[in-house]
């Protein structure tokens, strides 16, 4: 064990920095010429002495802008080096200055405040910009930050342990599922009425670039709703293995429910459902399948990559059977990190579903973005679906990356507008 490798570095990394920097770039890019009547202040919290940079201190800096961010007259971004960036309506300049003065006082004893203690504009804690005149400079900064992502420093073992501990303690969804609870939940799940937790969400292609056309509709059980009903104090997904086991019980219920539905039109229009490989190999699926002729419409089965690799031979067998029957397979739940490893062509499936994140917006136009685009273009036969699109920015970024299929709340709203 080398001593050197174990030494933690002095500069902290904010855990939310990555996603916030992605959001910052997305927001700056989204500001049209006419909407740039805004100011920007960067607070160099990373320049403070280590004793003044504790979690509480950083939090008090954030909360001093609470009032303005709540009313949406200011937007706050945490940078990876723990600095803060605040974009605000020019009309709120005085309020922002007041908040900055408060912070200058809070850290009055810090070396950084030796001079210029009370002038909101002249101090070493803050840098001020005007979106109208400094737009290019700010955009370049945000792009640089986004491009530098992925070159972050390597963690040490101590940092990794601390990070996982913190994640466990801070989970807002309660404690992880344990085996004794799983037994109880499985019993409850076998009886609970799923219909009120069942959702539908279309996957759409944009014809002529503007109009969304439904390719198929995903029918799924809202895990969030189910958790609230069955075990409000438990984080059902924190233990991936027990959660995966639980989904097998869920599969059986969903198959039965879909077969029973009075309104079976959906099954004829094109649908997708989430299943485990083990379920596809079971009697339950054969019963479900016996009523369908999937070669006449888009019938998609969504599988998770870890499930596929838990038993690759069973997957290969199930895949060949499904192909013959006319089903399509979609690899579900991919992130930017897993996407490169889930090559639909290599795995013999039709779709790969990537979840939208602001990090993706940050990649457009960068080297990483070009690599992602090349990968998406190469997989034309195994098409990429961009899921969880909750903004127009998601669709825009997706299209710039060569994606043609979209799903998410924003797509839902476009469909609603149309009908």
């Amino acid at each position: 064990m080398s001593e050197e490798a174990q030494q933690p570095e002095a500069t902290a990394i904010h855990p939310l920095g990555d996603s916030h920097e992605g959001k910052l770039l997305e927001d700056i890019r989204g500001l049209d010429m006419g909407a740039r009547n805004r100011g920007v202040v960067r607070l160099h919290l990373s320049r403070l002495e280590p004793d003044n940079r504790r979690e509480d201190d950083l939090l008090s800096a954030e909360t001093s802008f609470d009032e303005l961010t709540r009313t949406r007259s200011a937007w706050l971004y945490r940078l990876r080096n723990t600095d803060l960036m605040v974009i605000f309506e020019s009309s709120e300049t005085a309020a922002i200055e007041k908040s900055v003065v408060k912070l200058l006082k809070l850290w009055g004893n810090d070396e950084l405040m030796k001079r210029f203690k009370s002038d909101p504009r002249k101090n070493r804690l803050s840098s001020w910009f005007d979106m109208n005149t400094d737009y290019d400079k700010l955009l370049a900064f945000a792009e640089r930050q986004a491009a530098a992502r992925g070159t972050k420093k390597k963690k040490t073992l101590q940092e990794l342990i601390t990070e996982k501990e913190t994640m466990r303690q801070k989970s807002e969804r309660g404690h992880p599922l344990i085996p004794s609870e799983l037994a109880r939940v499985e019993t409850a799940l076998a009886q609970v009425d799923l219909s009120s937790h069942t959702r539908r969400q279309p996957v759409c292609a944009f014809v002529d670039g503007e109009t969304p056309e439904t390719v198929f509709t995903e029918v799924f059980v809202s895990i969030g709703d189910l958790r609230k009903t069955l075990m409000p104090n438990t984080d059902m997904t924190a233990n991936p293995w027990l959660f995966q086991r639980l989904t097998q019980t869920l599969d059986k219920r969903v198959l039965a429910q879909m077969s029973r539905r009075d309104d079976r039109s959906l099954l004829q229009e094109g649908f997708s459902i989430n299943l485990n490989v083990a379920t596809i190999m079971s009697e339950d699926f054969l019963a479900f399948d016996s009523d369908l002729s999937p070669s006449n419409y888009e019938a998609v089965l969504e599988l998770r990559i870890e499930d596929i690799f838990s038993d690759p031979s069973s997957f290969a067998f199930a895949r060949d059977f499904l192909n013959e029957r006319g089903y399509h397979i979609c690899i579900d739940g991919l992130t930017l990190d897993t996407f490169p490893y889930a090559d639909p062509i290599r795995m013999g499936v039709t779709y790969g579903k990537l979840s939208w994140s602001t990090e993706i917006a940050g990649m457009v136009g960068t080297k990483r973005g070009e690599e992602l685009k090349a990968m998406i273009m190469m997989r034309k036969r195994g098409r990429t679906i961009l899921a969880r699109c909750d903004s127009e920015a998601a669709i825009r970024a997706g299209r710039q990356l060569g994606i043609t299929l979209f799903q998410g709340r924003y797509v839902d709203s476009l469909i609603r507008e149309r009908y």
Partner: protein
Amino acid sequence: MTYTEDDQGNDQFVAWYDLEVDSALAIGMAQDLKASAGETLRRPPPATGLPSMTPVQLDYVQKQLASTNIIPFVKDQVAMRINPGASDAAIEFFEFFLSVGDLQRAIMPDINIFADRWLFQDLSRTMDLRMLETVVRAPHARQCKTLSLNLNLETVATLAFEKFLERSPDNQKLIVEVQAIDVLANIRTYFDVCDVISGMGHSLLIDGLNPTTLQMLDVGRLEPDYAKIMWAPEFTDLLNPDSNKTASKMIDEVGPEKIVLARCDSQDAMAWGLKSGIRIFQGHFLDSFGKPKGSGAAGRAATR
């Protein structure tokens, strides 16, 4: 090529045993060793006809496992680096693993604990913690220059793992063996663990690969230090390096120098591997090459 005693002529393995468990168990284990060599942690034996473990039983097994003495179930197997040019061989590492078959017979003889992949995967988290605290105390494991352990990625991010490293001999190298499903389910943790492990001079191995997984997954892109492929007789047809371009492409993608060909039980396996450019081998066929120094009882059993 086995070692029965250490430099002072003491049989450390037996001494360790006397301290930890009763001698009847120790003798039983030595006798079992040959029979069970090659069985590894995450590769369950074929279906037993026993009923599958339920979540309630998993809870029970977890609790039992936490208090059971697992020393009798800790096994080891050598991995050899073969140099065909010079016709010689050297020990690459020793894998230490928990014989789950034996463990099941001891804790839950009437239940199949492997039947449900996900419940077993959850159980393996407790196994990890027990292995870390046990192996670090075992003299024959401490003697190994390089040793490998099957672990879940999340186990690396625990104080138990940190403590294991602190208590390990200073110059010992560790290889962390992880499963592909663990990597794909926890990919961010995987990249963090790779950084952490290599930063400390240790290595990472992706375990349990076969032709199907290699076909579907770009293992090379994950950049592990080692990738373990399980030999199967159908390899000679499936991936004939002479006639089948897929084979050499897949092996090149991973990098033949990184591959450990495991479960080698015959000359055929070795020949296939060497022809494919693979140099590190593990399996019954090689077991007689080495036992960890100091594992007296084990060493003798293996050469009988």
